[in-house]
């Protein structure tokens, strides 16, 4: 029996810019099941962070969300007031931000910032919050955790800051964890350790994880399902194994060719690239947005490509399969 914790339908995010309205996220639908991991990958700027910020009701000024449904644990939040999100955020749903320095307050110690959500949402005492903070800092691999509580964010290395943020997100044992590039600044042995920690929490508490990453190695090893975004849309989504062994969308195929794979790519040689740039999403946008860069593009791609689906693997392209 599947148990959907997050069900997003028809989510769009529009941002008012000097040049007009930027359609950062365009009518996407995503589902995350309890105890499962959905990985979101895609070109820089394709709207991954905006999607997660929209779900958390943390969009920046000037950005507007619209959604047919945004349901969290069965409750539709698409029209819920900010107050409702404040009660859930950092509590039943938590986020690990891509930009640690903007999420951490430079004026407060790590200890104060870790304790705050736990005291606020759980009514914990200062001592209880401190104990839990020490426990979690230790879990995410920070040595001398008690000493670190007294430090300020600027005194930590990039990787340590990221681990502090992970600990902070876990303080209240969330049911849904949205992690935006949580392990990018970490070296690989710690990354493996943190990913195992998340996998353990998932097994133990059934936490659902939506993980945004550009590391296809991470995706391959932890995802149950993968969503590939391009220019504000989900262009392909499906079970991880199918997506790697049988990518259907030309963009997904291109992505898989870009990574250096030891033994397969020649050292110092040119890596596969997807030439061209992402189209501007300001103003009216029509047709397949990948067509300027797609090696298979045809005139018909100027119209919206059909949505296809085989065994729960969906993609949007005129082609059944990119050769």
């Amino acid at each position, binding site marked *: 029996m599947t148990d959907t914790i997050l069900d997003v339908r028809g989510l769009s995010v529009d941002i008012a810019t000097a040049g007009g309205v930027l359609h950062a996220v365009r009518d996407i639908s995503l589902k995350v099941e309890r105890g499962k991991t959905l990985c979101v990958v895609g070109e*820089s700027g394709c709207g991954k962070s905006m999607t997660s910020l929209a779900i958390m009701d943390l969009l920046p000024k000037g950005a507007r969300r619209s959604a047919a449904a945004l349901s969290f644990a069965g409750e539709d939040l698409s029209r819920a007031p900010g107050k409702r999100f404040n009660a859930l955020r950092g509590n039943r749903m938590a986020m690990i931000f891509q930009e640690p320095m903007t999420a951490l307050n430079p004026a407060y110690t790590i200890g104060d910032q870790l304790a705050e959500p736990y005291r606020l949402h759980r009514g914990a005492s200062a001592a209880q919050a401190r104990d839990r903070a020490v426990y979690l800092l230790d879990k995410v691999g920070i040595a001398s955790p008690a000493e670190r509580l007294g430090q300020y964010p600027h005194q930590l290395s*990039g990787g340590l800051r990221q681990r502090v943020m992970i600990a902070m997100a876990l303080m209240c044992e969330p049911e849904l964890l949205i992690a935006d590039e949580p392990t*990018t600044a970490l070296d690989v042995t710690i990354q493996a350790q943190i990913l195992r920690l998340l996998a353990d929490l998932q097994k133990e508490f059934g936490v659902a994880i939506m993980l945004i990453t550009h590391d296809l190695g991470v995706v391959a090893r932890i995802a149950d399902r993968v969503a590939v975004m391009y220019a504000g849309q989900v262009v392909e989504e499906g079970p991880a194994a199918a997506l790697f062994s049988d990518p259907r969308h030309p963009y997904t195929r291109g992505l898989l060719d870009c990574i*250096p794979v030891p033994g397969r790519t020649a050292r*110092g040689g*040119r890596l596969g690239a997807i030439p061209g740039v992402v189209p501007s999403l300001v103003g009216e946008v029509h047709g397949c947005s990948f067509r300027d860069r797609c090696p298979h593009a045809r005139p018909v791609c100027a119209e919206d490509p059909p949505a296809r689906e085989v065994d729960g693997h969906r993609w949007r392209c005129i082609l059944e399969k990119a050769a």
Partner: protein
Amino acid sequence: MNALLTADALTRSFEVGQGMFRRRRTLHAVNGVSLDIRKGEVLAIVGESGCGKSTLARMLLGLLPPSAGAITLEGRNIRDLGHKTVARRVQPVFQDPYSSLNPRRTIASIVALPLEVHGVGTAEERRRKVLDILDRVGLPQRFADRYPRELSGGQRQRVAIARALVMNPEIVICDEPTSALDVSVQSQILNLLMDLQKELGLTYVFISHNLAVVEHIATRVAVMYLGRVVELADTDSLFRNPRHPYTQALLASVLTPEPGLGLPDTHLGVAFPDPLNPPPGCSFHPRCPRRFEPCDKVTPALLRDAGGENAVACHLYPPSPANASLPKTKN
């Protein structure tokens, strides 16, 4: 081979610990690192988060004074050269494209700033040079008059690279230049960095935790652990025949894009490295699966191979008879 930039026994410590009753403690972020950066090479620095890579990078850039040791640029101490001279020849591309760009300046004025500081050209010449370099790093000109907050991470990192290159430096110190980027942008930036290196004869120090990328781009690799270099080798030897147990664990932890394999077990202990409490002896010993008798007492020195350029700091590789710097004791 001639060294362009040399680090000689570089050490940097910080005093940490706040509050009236907590005693202040010394954190050795970088601990006696000696490295030659040779003209035209790509020297990668890899290692655990917090092992001192960024601190080393900031010292090499002259942005942070060492507590001990010296940095020389073609034989002259950079302390005596002055910041402007060093900045003309050594430029950074930082780890965090978010905080390294001034949010109140447009992209064009961010990239033009080094030119202004060094008084290069007229306003119009600077503008042309900026548009030219933006084009080179693959940023459409429509971005020139936008602000950093309007750009995605990958776009911002291109701005940082453009800013680093606008002064035609000789050495570019890249601190995790692609770690915030998705893969198609990463491959473009790596191709770009490799092209620029050939075209402009650049030398790179390339800090990264992505070993597949390091294997692809680097000519030599320095592996750091808790503030020290524990292995130094040409790329081929390091990946074919890693010798330090930590290097071996690093290579074993690489997540290749093969679904179904799950997460690897690194066989490392959970004693995460702590620069506030560095273990005695070999600082890797609490996690090392191969530790033996001398490891928790004697700190292994970084020893160069007999007649070779590669070096390792581990008791499993005792000094060889031919090693000039450390003659073997007769028994």
